[in-house]
């Protein structure tokens, strides 16, 4: 499975659901797939993608989708425990797992050596945890996740593909545009 194609497929099932994307190519590909007001791209703070999504899920009633990565979530496995403890029914974590830190030179990650993120999630109380390896499987679990209570944790095994150009986004603009879709009174000066 290739991440960019799978990202487009995920978006085809969404309406206005908030999506948070891990830094780097995951955010770039989300932007190229569709630059929605409800996309929250991250370009720093590696490891925090699903923590940000957790904070969103605890603050709105809509389904919130985190597009995380194996290297990122390995940096912050504790947040899986916090998601298990809080158990927000509207959170869907998708972990793109290429078993490596691709951008820094394809160094193998711990998932290449037996770390099973689905089992990590299950052992933290996330019963609805699955590993998928093609788009059809991803589709089927995602359709269920969008209609049934979670939290959901989906490990999506992916292969290398060429990177797309870096998305021309500014974090401040991303935050402002995203937030304005939630607040009743727009943020203003003074």
């Amino acid at each position, binding site marked *: 499975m290739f991440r960019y194609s799978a990202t487009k497929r995920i978006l085809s099932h969404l309406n206005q659901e908030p999506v948070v994307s891990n830094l780097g190519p995951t955010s770039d590909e989300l932007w190229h797939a569709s630059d929605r007001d409800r996309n929250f791209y991250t370009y720093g*703070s590696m490891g*925090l993608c699903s923590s*940000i999504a957790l*904070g969103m899920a605890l603050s709105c009633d809509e389904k919130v989708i985190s597009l995380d990565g194996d290297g990122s979530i390995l940096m*912050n496995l504790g947040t899986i425990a916090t998601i298990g403890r809080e158990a927000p029914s509207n959170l869907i974590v998708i972990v793109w797992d290429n078993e490596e830190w691709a951008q820094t030179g394809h160094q193998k990650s711990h998932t290449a050596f037996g770390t099973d993120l689905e089992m990590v999630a299950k052992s933290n109380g996330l019963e609805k945890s699955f590993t998928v390896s093609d788009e059809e499987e991803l589709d089927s679990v995602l359709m269920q996740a969008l209609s049934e209570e979670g939290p959901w944790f989906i490990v999506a095994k992916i292969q290398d593909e060429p990177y797309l150009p870096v998305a021309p986004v500014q974090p401040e603009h991303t*935050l402002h545009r995203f937030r304005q879709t939630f607040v009743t009174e727009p943020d203003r000066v003074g």
Partner: protein
Amino acid sequence: MTWSQTIVDALKENEISLIAYVPDSSIHQVTKLVDADEYFHLVSATREEEALGIAAGAYAAGRNAAVFMQSSGFGNSINAIAGLAIPSRIPIPIFINLRGEHGEFNIAQVTMGRSTRPILDVLGVPHYTIDSEDRLEEKIKGALKLCYASREPLALCMTPLLHGGKNV
């Protein structure tokens, strides 16, 4: 009114209803009030940078959020401040119990405690030291107002002279 109740009231006045934290024995005087109050959702994080991420997500989705931590844990949270809250302009009040101050008994707490405010300066994060109940309400409410007006993270450093510290 106790110092901890003054903080809780100021949080409510600013509609800060999600608190993400890592437990600390001195800050427990505030977080136990938060935990007992249905107005708040208290989220126990496993690490301080995670708490910052959760608070950032809450704010992005329209809910004001603050974080509570100890100065040692502030060391664990720096990249979340530098790489998320600052570039995205996310106002997060960060309440820090400053270890390594008067009465500290643990040498391992001294360096991070002493380094906390200089690091905040280097990051460009405004911070205020709260070491007594003198004009406390004014200080806390003023700091929170500034935090949201500037849309920047802001730190409130609380010392043992305010909360009594950890006694062994």
